[in-house]
């Protein structure tokens, strides 16, 4: 048992007071009565009992002493120690494994200094028969060694020494210091006197008691860093924005921007390589933005001038309207090299060829005649919407020409259908008068609803119907699909007949809109552009959104083919077959995403993964560390006995009252 407030035992002095009261209290009170004659008679009548009065008096005094003792104990907060008290010195060594720990000076990185220091400190603890735990604060903190005693000290050496040799020991991302502290709570739960030593390069403004931050920085270390870079297409020409900073000292740094494949006409054209160099003064750890911009655009710019923004004007002869990649470098011999380069990709957009064929037979009055302007306008709207991702090339088939049956990504046939559908792209059939041979559907005669407008109904949820309200789209007539292949999904119906069918498998990608836009309000409905946008997103999803990511970021991937290969340099990182999927990148560099689309095209896209910008600040100052001791649950160590003593106190009070009541009987 442990007393949390030993001073409460001063309450035992009340026992002395009790004894004094017993000593000085008057024993007998005088009572004048007429005669004691009957009282003397009554003495003979008193039952001969066991002389318990003395015993009772003794028990009453004992009870009163115990009551006072109980009160004193309650004041002293007695607790039962549930876990064996650890007498030995116990430490947890947290090694920061963030990217900034790769900062190198005098031929040694901060990480190596941290590991070396942890090894030496662990040895000193073992010399005192202490207990050592080691936590590596990587992307996700984990125990390398948990509560190793001196007899197992080899475990600590085995866990820490390889970190000095392995290149991958220190991560390229941020460290999970919070997670490491949370792991320490488990150790503290076992031993509340555990000391925590954090080997890090971060300076904390608040460090809780019990945690010692071991600084592994060297004053000579500095870092010139490219924090971020972006390419922006404005009025047909690219401008490039590069954020740079210098931490640890003020310096003038040279930023080189190399544009590869500049202004290439097509994918087969290698284009030019253009290099721009800008010198900037980086002071006070502040971020400086360098904008490589066309001189004309700069003159038109309305952005307010800023001392931290430097413009590098690109002459007319060097204007960039297309590029394959941009390589940005800083040629400085700083302490942290991992952020001295940056790549920008996606300067060349992939061509998406769309053929729109809307033909009618003039004699046939049942069908609307002429090209559908609503449809065409939607296509051009999508072309603009996707200009950052695709180079959408729309080909309208003239009335006297035959539609192409290959080499397009999307074929749209309206009214008059080809005899056989193309197989190298996505096919959208609108108001099919006949069913193509390999379409897997059969078509009946057009049904006119006689002026009635019947709303469409959703038959099956699908991503194509996201944000689409089928009930708002009404039909006055439709083409009855009398049969469709089981591979089709029926998405919309009208009058219990299918009006939107979708087939999406390795053999064919076909969408069938079994109605004419002239017999529908769809052309003036907001749902139609949404439906077409969803159709594009479904059949032509972006492989990746964005081209620059940070280490340990989850990159959402999709594909238009069956497989997607992710490579870093020459090394295959991962192969994906299920989409959409997520790629977690742990190493900086250029990743190539390679796929073969449904139409058979080999497409390769590149993304650049960089060190987190916060890691470039090698003199980073953080606010504070969570206090792991605050989370300590006292109930894990002590069981509060106050309830039991209070119960005993109540029992003693009851016994004392009972004895007192018996005393007058």
């Amino acid at each position: 048992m442990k007393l949390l407030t030993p001073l409460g035992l001063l309450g035992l002095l009340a026992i002395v007071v009790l004894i004094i009261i017993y000593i000085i209290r008057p024993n007998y009170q005088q009572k004048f009565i007429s005669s004691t004659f009957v009282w003397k008679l009554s003495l003979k009548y008193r039952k001969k009992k066991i002389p318990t009065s003395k015993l009772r008096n003794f028990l009453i005094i004992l009870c009163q002493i115990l009551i006072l003792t109980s009160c004193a104990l309650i004041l002293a907060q007695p607790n039962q120690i549930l876990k064996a008290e650890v007498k030995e010195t116990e430490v947890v060594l947290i090694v920061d494994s963030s990217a900034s720990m790769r900062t190198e000076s005098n031929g040694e990185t901060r990480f190596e200094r941290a590991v070396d220091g942890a090894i030496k400190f662990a040895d000193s603890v073992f010399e005192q028969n202490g207990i050592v735990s080691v936590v590596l604060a990587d992307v996700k903190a984990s125990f390398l060694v948990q509560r190793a005693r001196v007899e197992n000290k080899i475990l600590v050496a085995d866990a820490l020494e390889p970190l000095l040799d392995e290149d991958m020991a220190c991560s390229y991302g941020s460290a999970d210091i919070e997670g490491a502290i949370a792991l320490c709570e488990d150790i503290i739960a076992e031993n509340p006197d555990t000391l925590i030593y954090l080997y890090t390069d971060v300076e904390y403004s608040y460090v809780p008691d019990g945690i010692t931050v071991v600084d592994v920085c060297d004053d000579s270390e500095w870092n010139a860093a490219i924090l971020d870079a972006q390419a922006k297409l404005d009025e047909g020409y690219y401008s490039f924005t590069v954020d740079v900073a210098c931490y640890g000292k003020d310096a003038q740094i040279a930023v080189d921007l190399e544009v590869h494949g500049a202004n290439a006409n097509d994918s087969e054209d290698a284009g030019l390589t253009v290099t721009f160099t800008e010198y900037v003064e980086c002071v006070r750890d502040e971020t400086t933005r360098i904008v490589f911009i066309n001189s004309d655009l700069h003159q038109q710019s309305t952005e307010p001038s800023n001392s931290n923004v430097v413009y590098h004007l690109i002459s007319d002869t060097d204007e960039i309207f297309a590029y394959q990649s941009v390589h940005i470098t800083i040629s400085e011999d700083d302490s942290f090299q991992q952020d001295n380069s940056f790549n920008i990709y996606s300067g060349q957009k992939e061509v998406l060829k769309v053929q729109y064929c809307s033909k009618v037979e003039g004699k046939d009055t049942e069908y609307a005649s002429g090209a559908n302007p609503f449809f065409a306008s939607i296509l051009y709207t999508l072309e603009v919407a996707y200009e950052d991702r695709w180079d959408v090339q729309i080909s309208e088939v003239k009335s006297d020409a035959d539609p192409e049956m290959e080499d397009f990504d999307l074929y749209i046939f309206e009214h008059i259908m080809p005899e056989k559908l193309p197989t190298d792209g996505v096919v959208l059939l609108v108001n099919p008068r006949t069913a193509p041979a390999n379409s897997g559907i059969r078509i009946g005669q057009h049904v006119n609803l006689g002026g009635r407008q019947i709303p469409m109904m959703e038959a099956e949820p699908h991503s194509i119907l996201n944000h689409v309200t089928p009930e708002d789209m009404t039909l006055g007539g439709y083409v009855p699909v009398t049969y469709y292949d089981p591979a089709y999904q029926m998405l919309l119906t009208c009058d219990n007949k299918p009006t939107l069918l979708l087939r999406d498998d390795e053999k064919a990608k076909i969408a069938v809109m079994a109605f004419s836009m002239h017999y529908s309000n769809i052309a003036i409905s907001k749902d139609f552009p949404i439906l077409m946008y969803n159709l594009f997103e479904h059949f032509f999803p972006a492989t990746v959104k964005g081209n620059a990511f940070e280490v340990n970021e989850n990159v959402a991937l999709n594909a238009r083919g069956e497989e997607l290969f992710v490579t870093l340099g020459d090394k295959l990182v991962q192969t994906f077959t299920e989409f959409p999927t997520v790629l977690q990148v742990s190493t900086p560099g250029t990743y190539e995403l390679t796929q073969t689309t449904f139409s058979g095209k080999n497409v390769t896209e590149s993304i650049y993964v960089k060190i987190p910008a916060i890691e470039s600040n090698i003199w980073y100052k953080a606010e504070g560390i969570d206090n792991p001791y605050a989370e300590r649950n006292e109930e894990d160590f002590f069981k509060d006995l106050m309830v039991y003593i209070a119960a005993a106190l109540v029992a003693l009070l009851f016994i004392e009252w009972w004895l007192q009541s018996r005393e007058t009987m």
Partner: protein
Amino acid sequence: MKSSYLNDGFFSRLETLSLNLRSNLAGYFGGKHLVNTYGQTVEFADFREYQLGDDIRRIDWNLYSRFEKYFLKLFTDERQMQVQIFLDCSASMGKDNHQKASYAIGAAAALGFLSVQNMDKLSFNLMRDTRSENPFGTIIGKNAFFRAISSFEELNFTEDVDIEACIKNCPDTSTGNGLTVIVSDFFTDSNWKKAVDYLCYKKRQVLLVQIMSPEEIDPSYDGRVNLIDSESVDVSDSKNMRIKITRSLQKAYEEALRDFKLDIKTFCSKRGVDFISVRTDQPIERVLFSELLKAGIME
């Protein structure tokens, strides 16, 4: 000490009552109590055959005409009794409890009044220590009675009383001629029973009136107490008690008091002695109109 009972109102309420003494007492000539002996009153009692020496004027000639025998017509006799009232003047009767003293004086005075009203001779004997004082002598008539009781107001209750000695030493305990009343709490170590036996031997009708205060019947104190007896000389007197009054002792007290009263009752019933026990919180009229009527002392 001034008794709250001795006033005109109290005595006027007693005028409708009278003492009912036994008829086998002898008494003196000239009273109002009917006795078993035949006398010269007008109240017929019996017939008896004529014997030589009888007064021939008392022969009932009507009976002679019917039976041709001589019969005398007998009449009851009325006698004057002597009523002796012994009042316990010990400290336990009123040194510290004036209500008890007043009550005792009131009861004695009431019985005395009834006796003088019946033309009886009355004497108040104040028992002190081992002697009984008769400061008023024989009282006959109401004038003498009221003169006597006026001095009761200065009566003091002190010391201890030996009832046996007081009664035996009383010079005026004539035989078979009246009622003896002992007013006391009988909380005494003296053998008062011998005194009663002595009175019975003297063929006197005896009435014991026990006066007790409520505190004596149901003591309300408990705990550790030093009981100081009013008859004790000093604190170290053996009559004083140092006891711890518990509930069991209180029960023992009740039991002892009950047995004490039962013992008096049994003793009295065996000897044809009347006994009443009253408590001072009861109205004195109730004692006279209820308890004494119930006992047959009063009619």
